[in-house]
């Protein structure tokens, strides 16, 4: 039997700043948020690591990429889920394994040398000042979709009351509710994935919603943040 063909390669680095989402949804969210808020991403390369299970290999393999040593800034976008400290600590460990600068706190810049690569970790849902809240990208998106479609939200509340939910965490609850919204609203593909659902063309998630303001402001200032002096 012939071996399976190798999967598609992630292209070489061609921009000064690299933004890495934990999953495809995170990366698509950043990409569409920047487009909606008119944040210049011409010098940003936005990629996804392929999910939680592949995050470690992705981060620890980054330095092997040609021209990675020319990259000025790396933003890693992860999810807090139900264990914010553990998830952040895992990303710190992946960075250590990859011999990359390791920020001590969320949203803090870390560098090995003053003019070297700046590494920042943003955990979702975004919390001002680098704090931590349980949840994920879905938690953030839910706020927007709830406000856009309150009537559907009421129906989901009713449905939620009819089904067993024992043992479901708050984060799982958020994911459940968002999935209900997306399935209800997107008729063509009830199983629409997050990476497509966040596209403005689908008109499912309002990326101008105020809940995204802080994330957008951070992304707008990211390039400057990387070039300002930081603790080495």
């Amino acid at each position, binding site marked *: 039997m*012939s*071996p399976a063909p*190798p*999967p*598609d*390669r*992630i*292209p*070489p680095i061609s921009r000064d700043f690299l933004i890495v989402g934990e999953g495809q949804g995170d990366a698509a969210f950043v990409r569409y948020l920047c487009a909606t808020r008119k944040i210049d991403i011409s010098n940003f390369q936005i990629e996804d*690591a*392929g999910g939680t299970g*592949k995050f*470690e*290999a*992705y981060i*620890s*393999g*980054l*330095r*092997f*990429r*040609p021209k990675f040593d020319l990259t000025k800034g790396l933003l890693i976008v992860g999810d807090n889920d139900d264990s914010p400290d553990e998830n952040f600590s895992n990303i710190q460990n992946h960075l250590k*394994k*990859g011999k990359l600068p390791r920020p001590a706190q969320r949203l803090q810049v870390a560098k090995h040398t003053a003019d070297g690569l700046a590494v920042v970790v943003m955990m979702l849902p975004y919390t001002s000042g680098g704090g931590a809240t349980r949840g994920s990208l879905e938690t953030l998106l839910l706020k927007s979709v709830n406000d856009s479609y309150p009537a559907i939200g009421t129906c989901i509340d009713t449905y939620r009351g009819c089904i067993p939910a024992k043992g479901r965490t708050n984060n799982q609850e958020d994911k459940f509710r968002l999935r209900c919204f997306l399935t209800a609203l997107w008729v063509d593909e009830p199983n629409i994935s997050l990476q497509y659902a966040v596209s403005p063309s689908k008109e499912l998630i309002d990326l101008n919603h105020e809940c995204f303001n802080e994330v957008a402001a951070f992304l707008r200032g990211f390039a400057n943040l990387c070039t300002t002096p930081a603790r080495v």
Partner: protein
Amino acid sequence: MIKSLEVKNFRCYKNLYLRDLKHFNIVVGEGGSGKTSLLEAIFLVAGASPEVWMRLRQWRGFSPIFRLSGTRDSYESLFRDIFHNFEKHKPASIRMVEYNDRARTLRIFYPKQDGYSPGGKNSNDAQENAYLVEPITFGWTTKGKEQRSRVDVKDGLLRFSGFNNVYPVWFTSPAINEGLTVATLFSELSLKKKATNLVNAIRTLYPNVQDVSVESIAGELALCVSIDDVPEKLPIGTISSGLTHFLSIMVAIFTNPFGVLLIDEFEVGFYYANLEKVLEVIFSFCQEHNVQVIASTHSYEFLRTLLPIMKQRQGTEYEFALLRTQRTGSESAIKELGDPSAAVESNFEVR
């Protein structure tokens, strides 16, 4: 096993230091960035006489037959590309240090005091300087003692003096036709009844091969194979370039225990569906015979296929390392990047 390598003023390397070579080293980088030159540097420092340089010239496409006009320029043209930016007034040097701290150094230089005319007529006359040849000297230092070998022109022939001891290194490349050498070495293994394991290894990959033997074809020794359903033995070169390449590598492993195997463009000749098995067999035998590998590749598929083999060896003494050559202007550099498993697993372009 080589631990570190220092190269100065050789080919595209003005100053190179590799401090942490592993058991298995994969060299990647753009064409012309110095992958083959790195392998050549190791082959030269391991060598015994300047004849090694003449072989490298041939593998780079020069004819084994050349004609010298008798001038200094003509003589030096044989060696001009040894030196970085053709700076022949500075010695080229290559120094390797083994894991047991034993060092071996090669210095290639023109000693000024030994000038003579190839015609035998010494002269300091400026008009005749064009004919005043300074014989290039290759000096190998082992155990603190330098043994020099000069390349003289005598009676119209190049002569190499003072042979040194060799370090066990084998260089294989698609550009090298090593059929006779492989046949000879196989014959030596066979005479010592040590070829059976090698033949068995070949049969795991090519099950239709019944046997391998050295035969005389029109007076020339050639490695031949018996194949199922074929009435006569076939010279190996006529069957498959992959099989030839594989056999050459396997003979190198079996005849160079505790040595170094240099492979330029590892993947060439191997059918993609066989690659996984080929690599498994080669790296297992390298491990068994303690052979260090330094191999170049342009192939992403090769790296991808190597992934499970690399992962299996993580944390053992048989680790892999990725070396990337990069050229800026006339100068090349190499980055030592360590085990690339995570990057290959993430489908990064690492070449």
